[in-house]
């Protein structure tokens, strides 16, 4: 299932579900599965594990010293650097806000719903972090790092569950905002009444926030590699509030 648009000679499908397929420049969350002599192996929830070489890290460990920096089970925020024809996935930790994730926890949702988590221009993620007082880093592979109070993390988890289950419905940002204002203390002193508008399934703008059809600058949506496009993650990537 998905949402298809025709723009000759291409058909574009925004899927409602599916596994993560790496694309260059994607910011993703990996979990260290193995530490080798010169590289780490990361589980990125894709078709295979991705090696993270020491050249892609800010550290310069000697041979066999890699476990001083990362150990099995550590979570890291990395970016996809290159993909070769055989499907090998190269990742790097060099870049703004990339690195090891300490504290907080990970929440996993369908990678297809990640554009909805970010929202138009980051509206959704800003709403969530502002109203729950948490810090969030969104990985395009469906893993989201959340840090904050236990209550804050639980509320973010609930928001992400709603987005994961109802991501194709309209007015999602308003619904999430309404949920957050209704269910607990918020950092700002906004009105306590939820303002979720009724769902209009016939709307030409199915998401209700102008995000459809997705424009070329919105990250995470399916993109035809033959169409040149602007830098994907401009103003996106890890959202830190």
């Amino acid at each position, binding site marked *: 299932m998905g949402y298809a648009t025709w723009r000759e000679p291409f058909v574009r499908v925004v899927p409602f579900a599916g596994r993560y397929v790496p694309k260059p420049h994607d910011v993703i969350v990996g*979990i*260290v*599965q193995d530490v080798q002599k010169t590289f780490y192996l990361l*589980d990125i929830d894709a078709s*295979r*594990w991705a090696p993270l070489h020491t050249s892609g890290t800010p550290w310069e460990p000697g041979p066999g010293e890699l476990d001083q920096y990362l150990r*099995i*089970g*550590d*979570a890291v925020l990395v970016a996809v650097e290159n993909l070769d024809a055989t499907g090998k996935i190269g990742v790097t930790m060099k870049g703004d806000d990339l690195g090891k*994730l*300490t*504290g*907080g*926890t*990970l929440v996993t949702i369908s990678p297809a719903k990640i554009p909805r988590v970010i929202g138009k221009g980051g509206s959704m993620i800003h709403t969530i972090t502002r109203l729950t007082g948490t810090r969030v880093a969104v990985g395009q592979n469906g893993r989201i*790092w959340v840090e904050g109070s*236990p209550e804050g*993390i*639980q509320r973010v*988890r609930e928001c992400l569950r709603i987005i994961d289950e109802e991501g194709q419905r309209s007015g999602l940002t308003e619904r999430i905002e309404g949920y957050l204002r209704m269910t607990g203390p918020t950092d700002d002193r906004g009105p306590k009444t939820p303002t979720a508008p009724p769902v209009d399934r016939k709307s030409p703008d199915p998401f209700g926030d102008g995000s459809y059809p997705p424009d070329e600058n919105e990250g995470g949506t399916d993109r035809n590699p033959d169409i040149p496009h602007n830098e994907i993650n401009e103003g996106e990537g890890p959202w830190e509030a």
Partner: protein
Amino acid sequence: MSEAVSAEIQTTHIIDLARTGHRLDGRGVDEWRPVTVEPGFVKSADGSAMVHIGNTAVLCGVKLEIAKPYPDTPNAGVLTTNAELIALSSPTFEPGPPQPEAIELSRVVDRSIRAAETIDLTKLCITPSEKCWTCYVDIHCLDHSGNLIDAAQLAALGALTHSTVPAKRFGVGDRDYPLEVSHFPIECTFVRLGDKIVADPTFEEETAGQGRLTVATDEAGNVVAMQKGKIGAFSPDEVIETIERSFRHGDRLRNLVRGN
């Protein structure tokens, strides 16, 4: 890729949360996910049951055939339990010969049913040393979202409770009759998360768990079987507390299986 290591920050978070008496899905430490038991799910089987515990789904089928009794038990029928963890049900399961997890699952379910004398095996004997019924209990995990042991055991008990002995089909009787079930053992599994012991663990909680304890209790107030799993320890007081909790949950789940 069969066993991806989960992130340490996730397990730490689950344990931190448990310390305050909370769980990822908002349940209390002694709260179960919704449980449903659907007997007679597979029409072509002699007995079957589909069990859902939250997102966990287990299907059990019972098949009765005529065979020769084992030489050391000439007056008893045969009970065989088998569990299949099909690769479709979890990213950590692979096709191929049974993994240790599948063997443990079938053995733990088998032990509770056998030890509680759920089925009087002597009644499955037709002619001593010659002919008896063999009862196959086949468990299929369709969706692994944690607490497979309890789901599988509930499914096995539910299937046996509503089974038919196909005597007419095999020409050893005038009519088919219901399989007689004498006792109703129920297994309850707990995992330790920090200083809390939680019931009905999810997949994530099992991964983070620091010790797992399964207690099988019957309707007469007996503990019929126990199984300890994973790395971690329980104090004697905790074991006794866990047994008491198992009786409480067992009574409720038993009514579900018996359709009361």
